[in-house]
């Protein structure tokens, strides 16, 4: 009998922490905030056992700047937080994007604005996809919908961060972070922790030229040149955009939803399919770059769209931008502060399907 792959039963938060360790994350900088505390708590012992280091920072601001330092040193590092804390990290994220430093940041989205609540929400979509800090920058944003996907995408986040020399955000929510599911952990092979690091700070050993990592460009035309370079990099990511298309082929109505809401919508699609209703699901996995191409293709096939988000209308802008030449999308908000269920999504989907 062949050996079964190991299965473990963990929360989304722990899956992300384990995924980071599998991806050879060597430094973690954290700060307590609900609903992501399992990540720093797990890391405070496990990353040390793995030969790395853990710092509980004095603030979210400091944690993000420690991440900047580790990224500048060319070391795989991560920080995690939730909405108000991620807002505080935006300063460093802008500097990291401007200085082209790799880093992985986790946001377990909670309700807002302000202190909001500690429940699930998707109100940070704009912040996560438009460059939440100052200046014209972007970062990759990955939106897992299951605990296994949270593990898998965390491993991928480190690869993207280092191949693109850019911060990468993993955007979950309180549902994903606190939900327990069985997953199959795996370890990527052949991670070369020093390969392709000819830009990082490791001292001028052997008398090499000094290296300088910065985002200040004061010379005539320098900043414009840097922005041109960054924009070209962001444009090159379009081909890396990814989405799950579920039951879309013959669908009359396509639901657009991401993360936990994408998964809840999937349950409704399954139920409706059993009843013979032609509903499909478009679930973006990368929120930036946005998978506009497959969405436009669906629009050109004459399908109708309903975007459902756990916010008051953010991703629907990207849906409409993608399909604007041929179609439009309806929108159904789930108010932050409410815990969404599949049942309550049935009526708006049905109404849309029947053209009400």
């Amino acid at each position, binding site marked *: 009998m062949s050996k079964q792959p190991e299965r473990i039963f963990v929360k989304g938060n722990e899956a992300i922490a384990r995924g980071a360790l599998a991806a050879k994350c060597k430094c973690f900088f954290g700060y307590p905030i609900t609903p992501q505390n399992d990540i720093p708590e797990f890391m405070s012992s496990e990353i040390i056992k793995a030969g790395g280091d853990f710092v509980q920072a004095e*603030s979210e*601001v400091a944690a993000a700047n420690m991440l900047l330092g580790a990224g500048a040193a060319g070391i795989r590092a991560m920080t995690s937080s939730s909405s108000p804390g991620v807002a505080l990290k935006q*300063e460093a994220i802008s500097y990291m994007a401007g200085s082209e430093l790799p880093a992985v940041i986790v946001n377990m989205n909670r309700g807002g604005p302000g202190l909001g609540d500690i429940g699930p929400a998707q109100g940070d979509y704009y912040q996560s996809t438009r460059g939440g800090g100052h200046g014209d920058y972007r970062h990759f944003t990955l939106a897992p919908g299951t605990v296994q996907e949270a593990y898998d995408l965390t491993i991928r986040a480190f690869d993207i961060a280092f191949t693109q020399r850019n911060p990468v955000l993993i955007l979950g929510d309180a549902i994903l972070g606190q939900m327990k599911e069985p997953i199959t952990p795996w370890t990527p092979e052949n991670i070369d922790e020093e390969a392709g690091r000819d830009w990082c700070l490791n*001292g*001028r050993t052997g008398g090499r030229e000094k290296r300088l990592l910065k985002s200040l460009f004061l010379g005539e035309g320098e900043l414009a040149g840097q922005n041109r370079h960054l924009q070209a990099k962001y444009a090159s990511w379009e081909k890396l955009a990814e989405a799950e298309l579920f039951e879309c082929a013959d669908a009359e109505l396509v639901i657009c939803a991401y993360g936990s809401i994408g998964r809840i919508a999937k349950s409704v699609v399954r139920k409706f399919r059993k009843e013979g209703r032609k509903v499909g699901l478009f679930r973006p996995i990368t929120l930036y770059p946005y998978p506009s191409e497959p969405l436009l293709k669906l629009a050109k096939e004459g399908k109708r769209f309903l975007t459902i988000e756990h916010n008051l209308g953010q991703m629907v802008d990207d849906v409409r931008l993608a399909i604007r030449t041929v179609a439009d999308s309806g929108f159904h908000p789930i108010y932050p502060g409410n815990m969404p269920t599949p049942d309550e999504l049935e009526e708006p989907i049905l109404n849309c399907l029947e053209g009400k």
Partner: protein
Amino acid sequence: MTQSAEKIVFRKPESVIDRATHYCPGCHHGVAHRLVGEVLDELGLAENAILIASIGCSVFLYNYLNVDSVEAPHGRAPAVATGVKRARPDKFVFTYQGDGDLASIGMAEIIHAANRGEKVCVVFVNNTVYGMTGGQMAPTTLLGQVTTTSPAGRCMTHEGAPIKMTEIIASLGGTAFAARAALNNVKNIKTAKKYIKKAFEFQLSNTGFGFVELLSACPTNWKMTPVKANERIETEMIPYFPLGVFKDVSDEGGVC
């Protein structure tokens, strides 16, 4: 005297790049840079050091020191230094920060890096004003000192008292060495170098956090000649910011 009899007795340190600086006449950043460069040379650190540059006039230190460098956001250099050092514990890591950067917007980062006993060093240049932005009031601006944002002079009841950073840093458990020197005369400059070297050595022995405050002149924003500015350090700054070593754990048997 023939040419061959000439002997060079004073050189630029190898760690200092041979180029003109952007600093104003009489500014002490050049002196402070040189002292850091001399100590890097003497301890053989040029090929092992990583500089965290801060925001203010001295952000361009990375153009003058021949070491790997990264630019930190305003006030965050001690946090960035923490990240670099934790990522590469075998490297020599130091920040160089002004008073606005370190004692105002960066107060949380400096306090906690020191308190954790991060094995990094901080060179703190205190000239009692925000220099690069044009001479606004700093957390170290002296009482009565006129700046562009305290036009009637800093007032105790409205702006509070100038902050004594070295004393605060010396009170923290993770600090191995904390000292204040001035750059207004040769004697004080020599002492400053001694302190910087000592702070650097505490990192090399993995003992704890090293902090050196340098009382410095900003003649442009003080609206003084360089000579008068040097005199101000002696007559106004040193009486409020006393010089000396405030903590040296080699006298105490180390940090816990």
